């Protein structure tokens, strides 16, 4: 197990290094003069010179890259050009929205999808199964930002139960802050739950045909007991894999859904930074989002090596 973890940690480090290199090359090397990209061709030469000095553009690219990575390791992400505050500070503020939002969305989607998937497998080819799978097919087709708009239309505009957008902040009233995340979390969770329910159903069905389930049934266990106690536990491995892969879609979805609800999270930050051409913020936030995806998948890898020892030795 230790050798397996070491190998995966090395792989993780290499992937993170490669991701940072790609982000750096795209934003700082390919455009030629990033300061010109940020300020536009109409900019005053003095302003350009000042920004070039601030970004250290007089130094060669490899040196700038190393300085950026060293800063990342120290937690120093530089100064945002538009907000004039350290990017690290901005990121921490915005994480207070994005992190609870994604956690809430994942919890909702799992809580909904796994029971529905198992129920559909238990009612295989009966109307309950058909109904759940039809809903799943529709859930997969609905874009999360449209669902978000529909939720606003019904629960904010028509019924007035929730606000149509904005975020009151955690310190003022935690209850209202949580409430502001409910509709966005539902919009993010439902399409993911549709996919997860389908995966859970087919994984459980796969397991129900396995010998160990048949043995458990032969020993006198009821079909439901065999399903919940034996099939589901083993079916969780593919379910976990898909949840890891879904995480990247969830983060991408958060970027859009935060914009629908005007939530001041990381997604809104990076969107505004792109509109304002604040490459310093874009560079750091995009790397942070990509790194989160990589790290979550790394954790999933470790988790299912813990669940299934065969995976530790295999390729």
């Amino acid at each position, binding site marked *: 197990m230790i050798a397996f973890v070491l190998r995966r940690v090395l792989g993780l480090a290499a992937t993170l290094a490669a991701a940072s290199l790609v982000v750096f090359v795209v934003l700082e090397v390919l455009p030629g003069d990033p300061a010109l990209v940020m300020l536009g061709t109409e900019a005053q030469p003095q302003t350009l010179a000042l920004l070039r000095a601030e970004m250290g553009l007089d130094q060669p690219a490899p040196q700038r890259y190393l300085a950026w990575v060293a800063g990342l390791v120290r937690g120093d992400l530089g100064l945002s050009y538009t907000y004039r505050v350290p990017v690290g500070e901005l990121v921490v503020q915005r994480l207070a929205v994005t992190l609870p939002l994604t956690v809430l969305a994942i919890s909702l989607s799992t809580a909904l999808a796994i029971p529905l998937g198992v129920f559909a497998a238990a009612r295989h080819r009966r109307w309950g199964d058909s109904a759940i799978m039809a809903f799943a097919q529709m859930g997969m*087709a609905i874009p999360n930002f449209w669902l978000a708009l529909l939720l606003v239309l019904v629960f904010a505009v028509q019924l007035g139960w929730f606000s149509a957008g904005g975020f009151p902040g955690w310190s003022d009233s935690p209850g209202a802050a949580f409430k502001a995340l409910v509709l966005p979390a539902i919009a993010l969770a439902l399409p993911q739950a549709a996919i997860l329910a389908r995966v859970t159903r087919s994984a459980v069905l796969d397991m129900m045909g396995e010998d160990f389930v048949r043995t458990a049934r032969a020993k006198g266990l009821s079909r439901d007991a065999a399903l919940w106690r034996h099939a589901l536990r083993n079916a969780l491995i593919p379910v976990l894999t898909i949840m890891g892969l879904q995480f990247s879609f969830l983060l991408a979805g958060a970027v859009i859904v935060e914009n629908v609800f005007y939530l001041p999270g990381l997604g809104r930050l990076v969107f505004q930074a792109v509109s304002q051409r604040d490459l310093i913020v874009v560079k750091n936030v995009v790397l942070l989002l990509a790194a989160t*995806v990589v790290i979550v998948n790394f954790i999933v890898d470790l988790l299912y090596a813990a669940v299934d020892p065969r995976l530790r030795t295999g390729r």
Partner: protein
Amino acid sequence: MASQGLARGRAGLATGIGLVLVLVATSLLSLVWTPYPPADIDIPSRLQGPSLAHWLGTDPFGRDVASMLIVGGRNSLAIALTAVFVGLVLGVGLGAAAAASGGWFSDVIMRLADFTFAFPALLSAILITAVLGPGAINAVLAIGIFNIPVFARVTRGAALQIWGRDYILAARAAGKGGLSITVEHVLPNVAGLLIVQASLQFALAILAEAGLSYLGFGTQPPNPSWGRMLNEAQTFMRAAPLLALFPGFAIAVSVLAFNLLGDGLRDLVDPKLARMR
């Protein structure tokens, strides 16, 4: 029981094919005819409800919603088609090469594929837009890049199985090289699987394009797009809630069409799966 699953699969496939044909036909028709020119602004008739003159009503600028929807669909399909094509050509090439060569080359390709998954289409789009500015071509690029590793993985996995077959051994014994075996034996045998994957990726590409254009990173005005129509509708949600319904419905139906098509084709390619359904 098995035939019931198959029958349901067939019904899904038929629905998928039907919907895709309608989408393609409407898009083609829009090349020669739309009810109104989609960019025509007509302020006096702004925010009208559905009527005989404007089937789906008009938007805040008095533009005909039905015409925008039809042309927006054409743009969406064109972007999805190009993005999937880019991913298919590059991904299949890389995946087939990885399967044929094996060893370190295969490892490098697969690590690169893993790595690309860290950048969902939206993140690539943000990077590209930050440098080049928004536009349809950048959307194609961002979605296409994300499709490459998907096709590379599917191709390599399926091709490796084919490489283990007896007839490949026979072809090798006959003196054929890696390239000609790949072209003559491997690719024709994995083509079915690739068509299925292409259909499912097409659905994802439509979703991604809609998301990008909602954020303003995709198709630019005056060219209509479903995503931007939804964005514009958001401001008028109280006055004209219908504006937020039509484009979203169009996106959902298109995605559903390609998902049903993909699922149905997969059942045909792999009947074992159909029995599970």
